């Protein structure tokens, strides 16, 4: 067992939980939460590989994770704004409310 493996298993668990939730929950906000979890799982594996991977570069993995956090912030802001816009039109944050493409 290599040293990165526990972290990768943790990341996999996080990813799976997030995915199951994102697919199953009907509340759009919670679907977004699931997506956040999946993003974080990816981040965790970046850091795990950075720390325990064979590549000698001391920074790149960290940078990847850092940028990913920044992007996740943007993603959350836009996603939540979309949810607010959706709520304004449909008076609901249920994902079924957004199924139809007709305005």
């Amino acid at each position, binding site marked *: 067992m290599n040293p990165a493996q526990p972290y990768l298993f*943790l990341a996999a668990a996080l990813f799976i*939980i997030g995915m199951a939730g994102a697919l*199953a929950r009907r509340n759009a*906000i919670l679907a977004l939460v699931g997506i956040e979890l999946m993003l*974080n799982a990816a981040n965790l594996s970046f850091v795990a590989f950075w720390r325990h991977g064979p590549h000698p570069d001391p920074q790149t993995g*960290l940078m990847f994770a850092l940028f990913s956090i920044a992007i996740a912030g943007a993603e959350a802001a836009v996603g*939540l*704004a979309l949810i607010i816009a959706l709520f304004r039109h449909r008076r609901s944050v249920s994902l079924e409310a957004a199924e139809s493409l007709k305005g």
Partner: protein
Amino acid sequence: MTPWFLLFGGLVVVGALGAMALRNPVHCGLSLVVTFVGLAGTYLDLGADFLGLAQILVYVGAVAILLVFVMLLTRTGRGESPEVRPGGWWWGGLVAALVAVGLVGALASVSGWKPRSEPMTFPTVRDLGVALMTDFVLPLQLVGVVLTAAMIGAAILALPERRGGRVGRTPKGEEPEQ
């Protein structure tokens, strides 16, 4: 595997399970925070200090707050509506199980892991800063552009559309606050 890993890893998994399975959305949001804190702890344990603190600052300080704020704005704090899509567990569980099988299988079958050739050098904040300003300056600028665009987009999306006007009088000389 350090004790810290067990502690923080436990937090991550429990928090994530709570975030996805609790009935009340606000509880889910708070449970998500536990996950974020656990992840930050894991990063610190891995030696990525800056990243761990940035994780807290961004996720706990901003994203989680934003989430609960939106939950209040959209009145989802009561847990009234059915929380799971009809048949959702089926689909979600099935897909997640498939992915789980794939991921775990892949991870378990990893072999020939090359150990690190030289000892790990942990970058200081100064190193990170220098790297951001030299090697990674283009991504940094791009992230800046993305964040700006996201900010403007989010503001436009969330701005109320003016139709019909507001209930109640707006005092003279003051614009209605957003």
